[in-house]
């Protein structure tokens, strides 16, 4: 096993990440504006941007989901308890003593257990909660004549807003995490260049060198 600079984020994945980031920022700003927390935009402008960004994000997610399953990349997100304790201990204790991060990226495991769990929950709980409630919200006038539509809408708005608060919280933690470990730059660059240090088995290295030399430096 040895550390190599390997391409772990494909062009599509990087595009996915950054377009998703941009859209989520737009959605958070416009969404909390619609909720009445600020008046940076008129309600009409906010609705237009919010709806447009939401529909764009749904397209991004549709492609992202398709990509995850067709490329087998979904396996990176399978939650695991193995190594979780070490990571938790590191963030709550070891980090203050200057210890080294306990996790090494593997070729088929590019997220540490805490990351994998967080991203999985995001994908399976928070994102579906916000887009399902958002679509129901958007198309309210298509179902406004069912019994108790107002109460349903109120519930949907509740779920939508709660998910938004949770996603905002995720964003703060996610960005803060970039400042840990190596430098902020070292954390951001892999999502720009695609390359990061990965612990490769000799077999993996040999395979990459021979069959996919552009994936390894």
């Amino acid at each position, binding site marked *: 096993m040895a550390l190599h600079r390997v391409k772990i984020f494909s*062009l*599509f994945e990087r*595009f996915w990440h950054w*377009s998703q980031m*941009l*859209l989520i920022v*737009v959605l958070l700003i416009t969404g909390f504006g*619609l*909720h*009445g927390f600020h008046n940076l935009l*008129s*309600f*009409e*402008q906010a*609705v*237009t*941007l919010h*709806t*447009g*960004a939401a*529909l*764009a994000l749904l*397209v*991004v997610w549709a*492609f992202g989901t*398709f*990509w995850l399953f067709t490329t087998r990349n979904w396996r990176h997100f399978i939650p695991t308890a193995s190594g979780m304790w070490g990571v938790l201990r590191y963030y709550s204790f070891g*980090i*203050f*003593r*200057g*210890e080294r991060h306990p996790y090494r990226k593997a070729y088929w495991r590019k997220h540490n257990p805490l990351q994998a769990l967080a991203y999985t929950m995001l994908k399976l709980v928070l994102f579906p909660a916000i887009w399902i409630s958002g679509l129901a*919200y958007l198309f*309210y*006038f298509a179902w*406004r*004549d069912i019994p108790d539509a*107002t109460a349903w*809408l*109120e519930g949907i*708005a*509740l779920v939508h*807003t*709660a998910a*938004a*608060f*949770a996603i*905002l*919280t995720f964003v*703060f*933690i996610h960005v*803060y995490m970039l*400042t*840990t*470990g*190596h*430098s902020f730059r070292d954390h951001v660059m892999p999502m720009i260049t695609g390359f990061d240090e990965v612990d490769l088995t000799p077999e993996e290295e040999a395979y990459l060198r021979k069959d996919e030399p552009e994936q390894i430096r």
Partner: protein
Amino acid sequence: MRGRIHFAQPPMLRHRPRQILHQGLHQGLHQGLHQGLHQGLHQTLHQTLHQTLRQILNQSLRRFVQVAPADAQPTQEGRPAPKQARSLPAFRPGLTALGTLVLVLTALAAMPSALFADASGWPTPPASEAPKPQVSGPLQGGTADHSKFEELKGPFANGSEVTEACLGCHTETGEHFMQNIHWTWSYQDPNTGQQLGKRYLINNFCTNSRGNEGMCAQCHAGYGWKDEDFDFSDETKIDCLVCHETTGTYYKTPNSEGHAACSVMFEGKEPIDLAAAAQSVDLPQRANCGSCHFNGGGGDNVKHGDLSTALIEPPRTLDVHMGADGLNFACTACHVTNKHIWAGSRYNVVSKDTEGTGLPGQRTDVATCESCHGLAPHPVDSLAAFKLNDHVQSVACQTCHIPEFARGGVATIVDWDWRTAGKTRDGEGYHEEGYIQGNGEHRYTYKSIKGDFTYDENIVPEYDWFDGQMVYTTINTTFDPNADSIEINGFSGSREDERSRIWPFKRMHTWQPYDKGHGTLVYTHLWGEDEAAYWGNYDMGAAIEKGMADFGLDYSGEYGFIETISWWPITHMVAPKEQALACGDCHAPQDSRLAEVKGIYLPGRDRNAWLDNLGTILVFGTLGGLLIHAGIRFFSPKGDHH
């Protein structure tokens, strides 16, 4: 144009200005979609979508309007509309996914430019430079010049002689006219069975016309109604001129003399040249209808709030339909007429029109906005427009498009206090001016004959769910004599009712006399030559006594004053679209126009306080935790902060 009666175009042509509207709408839709898509999306996608949408639009619109075939579609700004789909370039699978994503993001990036563009791209409707005749609906053009008719040369001794001349050619009109509410002043509500109509009702302005016809029936479209003996079957008593003459010199005076103190007001007027008036007849102009409807309640805009003399020659900013420099609609452009029966009624309001424009030849029976503008009135050129068209289900057009009423410089009365009526100086009634309205005119704020008035202008309406059904407190309604207030015309409606929408209203508040012993409203005898008539004698008790006795009504003998509210749906003074309410006027945490409207969850106005507090604690708690974490890292000697 003057002096002619216009006859209908062949029935195959569309009635009303709907035709123009439809073409405008069609062009708007077409352009809006074309431009919106063109700006945002990749050329390939643009062409596919454009073609599909164009087909759908054309198909659906052609059903409603006679439009030129697709090939002759108007092109905009010199850019020819693509005539047929070009074949799509071959897809390279590797680029498809990425390409589409880029498209979506480009579209999103292009959105702000569309968002912040000048919202008033074109005036609605375009202002015209040269004045044109008022648009009166189906009848355009004219086939006769009434100044050439021998029958109208005169001389005429009185109005009835003119009417006889009219009926000489218009043989069926008398029969038709006597069915309408301008003649009968009577309307029976088909749902509640209540006997309504000016002849019977009590309002909270001058209270009742019943027993006061000598004065009030100046606005009856007839001659000589002064008491119960009026012959409602005499065609010659119809007043054709008040609605059709266009010299502007015609006027009416009370049908009975009244008290000497009052009748002096109507003396010394120029005699009317009836022959000139008869030869000037045309379809009713705004000034004709306005001679009564703009002066309801006893003065300019007193009653309705959205019907004032400012609408005789209004700018399009005051009313986009009636604007003399714009569409220049006469009242009958919307209040379409069939056998002298008019569409549109405050007694029987269509609060939610679900039929829209109907097919050619249909729908000339309503005065709703939708009967011209359809059920999806906003050109779909943006996401916001989609949402606006959704709102049509819940919100009346008037709610957003009449941001304020009593505009144009003429105030309306919002509060009337009969308790102070009857004060005299040296035994004589008097009045006081105390309000200067927008156009500079002074208004009376006190009259001995009526009490104190409060005026207001540029008023933000009250809003509530309204299903179109008014329930009146009539002379036959009994109520708790100790009630805080009585609704003259209560209305129903709710979010759950599918006929209801949120409507704007003028709220009129009055202290007015009532029968304290029985808990009923009263007929007050205001006008007359006798000593009980309130106007001139100022004895409220005697006036009520006689007002009730004349119609055999039971009166306890004890009167008091009670607070009454009446509700006036606002539907005129439609502003150009640039001045319509913005989303944020209702969707706002503070000062929402719909702050009081119940039964809805209104995004922006409504929130769950618990969730907001928990969410705020979560976010700021997290931020605090991260700050502490960062602080410990920073200050711990072996902290990880290279």
